[in-house]
């Protein structure tokens, strides 16, 4: 009942404002042709197109993957370029979301190549199955390094690492016991990161029975991923995070809003369906201007709506100065977002960046829903 889909009515018509709202949240903002087609197609078809664009997305990503280079500033530039040019912006937004969710960054990883591979893995699963995503994370050397899991010897199971996995990535604080921590650590013994590669050392693995989330068995990291993905607590955390990302950063949703989505997500682990439900809902369309654009959304949004490409390597540095350093979230908690993006230093810098990107071009107020890039409204999403 809470998540009933939005249907256009005379009181809540499908108009330009709602088109802009949808594209700002589900993509980075509409350009002219997208806006016109969306008005004609209506909300359901537009959301379908955003989830499954008709273009050859695979070919686009193959081409981008071939161009991608290191070191970090160039990689950041390639990712921003990919976001600006992609036919599937919702996928890039979700990749960015997961990047913040797992909070894996160069501060702790140190090998830019591992970070590149990590983000590609995120992209592959971003709108897919959450259990597959979590499973991939339990085999990702970047995640191990970031969360302190480089070494997991049998003699001394790495409980710090296990604690991070439970508190940061799955069920969350207060939802696990010390037994869970100890046995999760044992499940990961024998899996190390050596020379930048994830390695399995069977002799160092404790293959005895472990009890995690009340279930006993000879668990390995992939079992942990499977179990954790199906925990209701994990599902609630993911749903809340997605609520914050897509719907509102100001309003804390009530438990009975989250519960139905969480139950379904815990069963089917389908990220795409979860996102679709949220985007289709009336709640979604009733919540414009409830988020602050992240620096990436601000810049990429302008580029996509104005249909320009800019040198993205310097842009990467500027966005880092605004607080969003792609590839280097401040901690494992990712970017806090919301009001934290706006302080007395960043507000003026963001305004200057927006004005510089718009430059002398005519500002299409009808595509931004705002008359002036220097206005405070422009900072909201």
């Amino acid at each position, binding site marked *: 009942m809470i998540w009933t889909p939005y249907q256009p009515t005379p009181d809540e018509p499908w108009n330009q404002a709602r088109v802009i709202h949808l594209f700002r949240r589900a993509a980075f903002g509409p350009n002219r042709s997208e806006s016109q087609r969306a008005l004609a197609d209506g909300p359901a078809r537009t959301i379908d197109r955003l989830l499954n664009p008709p273009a050859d997305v695979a070919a686009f990503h193959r081409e981008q993957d071939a*161009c991608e280079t290191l070191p970090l500033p*160039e990689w950041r530039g*390639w990712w921003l*370029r990919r976001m600006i040019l992609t036919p599937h912006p919702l996928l890039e937004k979700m990749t960015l979301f997961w990047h913040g969710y797992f909070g894996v960054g160069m501060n702790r990883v140190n*090998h830019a190549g591992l970070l590149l591979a990590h983000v590609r893995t995120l992209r592959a699963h971003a709108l897919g199955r959450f259990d597959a995503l979590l499973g991939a994370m339990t085999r990702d050397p970047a995640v191990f390094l970031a969360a302190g899991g480089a070494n997991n010897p049998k003699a001394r199971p790495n409980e710090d690492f296990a604690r991070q996995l439970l508190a940061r990535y799955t069920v969350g604080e207060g939802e696990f016991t010390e037994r869970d921590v100890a046995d999760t650590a044992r499940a990961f013994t024998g899996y190390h990161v050596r020379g930048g590669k994830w390695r399995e050392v069977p002799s160092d693995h404790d293959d005895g029975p472990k009890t995690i989330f009340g279930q006993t068995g000879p668990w390995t990291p992939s079992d942990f991923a499977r179990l954790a993905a199906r925990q209701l607590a994990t599902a609630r955390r993911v749903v809340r995070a997605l609520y914050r990302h897509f719907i509102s950063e100001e309003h804390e949703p009530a438990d009975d809003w989250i519960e139905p989505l969480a139950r379904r997500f815990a069963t089917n682990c389908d990220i795409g369906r979860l996102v679709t439900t949220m985007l289709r809902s009336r709640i979604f369309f009733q919540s414009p201007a409830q988020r602050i654009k992240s620096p990436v959304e601000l810049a990429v949004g302008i580029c996509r709506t104005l249909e320009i*490409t800019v*040198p*993205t*390597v310097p842009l990467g540095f500027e966005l880092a100065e605004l607080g969003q350093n792609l590839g280097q979230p401040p901690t494992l908690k990712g970017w806090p977002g919301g009001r934290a993006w706006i302080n007395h230093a960043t507000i003026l810098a963001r305004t200057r960046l927006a004005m510089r990107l718009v430059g002398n071009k005519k500002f299409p107020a009808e595509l931004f829903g705002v008359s002036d890039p220097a206005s405070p409204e422009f900072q909201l999403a």
Partner: protein
Amino acid sequence: MIRTGSRLIVILLALATLELCLLGVLHLAKARRPHAQATVSAPARSVSFDDWIPEQALAVLEVSRADKIMELAFDPAFTGEQSFWSQWKPSALGWTLFRRQLEKEMGCDYPTIWRRLLQDGVVIAAGPGQSFVAIAQASDAEFLQKLNNALVAAARKGAAGKSGNHRVIEATYRGAAYWTLSAGAAYHAILSNRVVLANKLDALKAVLDCRAEAGTGSLAKRADYQAAKRTAGGVATLRLSPELRQLQAKPKGDTATEPNPLAVLLFAGYAEALKANSGWLALGADLQGHSLTLRVAIDCAQPKNAAAFSWPPTAGEGAWPNVEVPRRIAALSLYRNLHDFYAAKDALFPERTSQLIFFENMMGIFFSGRDLTDEVMGAVDPHIRVVVAGQTYDPAVGTPAVKVPAFAVVFRMKNPKQFARISEEAWQKAFGLVNVTRGQKAEAGMILDRKDYAGLRYTFASFSPDEEPDRSKLDIRFNYSPSIAHVGEYLVLSSTTQLTEDLIAALRKPAPGPLDGVNALLEMDGERLAEILRINREPIIRSNMLQKGQNRAAAEAELDRNIALVRFLGRASLRVSASDGRIAGELTFQLRGPAAHKQTVALAP
């Protein structure tokens, strides 16, 4: 004021270069036709305008072969739809009608009008307060009078319909009549067969004053200007006013970055010269056959202060000719006294950057604590040569995805027996450290080995391709096989073994004598450079797309333009030398005509 000055210089330099490039292009265009190859060097008739140019002029450009430029400007091959010029042609209907009318009145076509107008030469001078004057000497006074009447009449007719901007004013000053056809945007005066055009009335009056007073207060009376003109060959002379000179001496504002020691090593001698010079900078140009030469001369003596390390102290001394190796792309020969350079480091770069400290720490380790200034920098003599050459790749080893040319530095050791051993030890320590550092980052290391070539043993380090999956797209590190060789009294540090061996062969030839007074000689082969760009096409395009945000088509077009330009410029050489209280730089291009482009120089078999 100061920024204006530098803008002026840039404009005039651009104009001068444009003129000369045009001359070059014109010449090549002519080469396609069955005419005899004319050499365009000294003007046939040299008309001097010096006595009309006020001495406050900041910069003066004499265009002595304006007729040739006009010929070029109206050559159909160059004025067609897609040409360089077509973007500047006004396309309004009104303009076409006006042109037709003018041609009818003058009795000849439009290109001829221009040719006759500028027949005996034109000079452009820039003055303070953003003022410009141009003085041209036409074919005859009658033609000029007729042209002027036609223009004034047309302007009056046009102004009759509108008001304000197009008012025509006629007046006289010191016996000369002058007009403005655009209510003060520009003024011109006709004096028998000369026309003077100025953008400010004061500037026009200053010229007329000089003329009326038979050259008093003009540049004809300035000995320093005349001297500078003579040194350059008289095509263009630029004056550096004292304010501009002071600007160069000051660091650039508050955000001055710390001086880069390498930049100081290369350019300190020239920066000092610019600070100390007498005030005139002379530009000259020459076109002989396919060879285009641009000359810059500064009137000043070699600096004796901290920057003295970069000049030969006595006559007969100087940099050596560059080393010749196969597939050579560029070569630089320097005369730099490293011992004096490093001894003066407090004066030259007082900032202790972390890079400098790191360098000293490393050199301390490699050279086992020997004094850097006396025992290391002082162990080589001032003749330093750098060479960059294309490399060929052994299919058994593999080809890297990005192909980097080989490069090497050649020093001459003062005490070969002793320093050969010291430098060998330092080199081995350095690459051992590189290996350890790479190992810490889990990257592949190099194997150090020695090998023989032409009776000489040398040491090198190389990467092994054994574990690489794709031998046709290897990592960039496979471009490098660093090596060190001692060829008699020469110390060779090279990035590949192939270049080392080529240098061993080249250095065994008899030693060349120094080039008197030369402290830098840079030579580049445009064709070979174009080849490097060509074989690295894909990485360059991708980098362009990323760094400039362009799409693929624009990136490809930019690369193709650059390759075409580099090929056109052909062989280039830059020689900087000092003699008789003058420092001169000479930039020569051996331009390649269109036919020459058909041959491509292959760098790989």
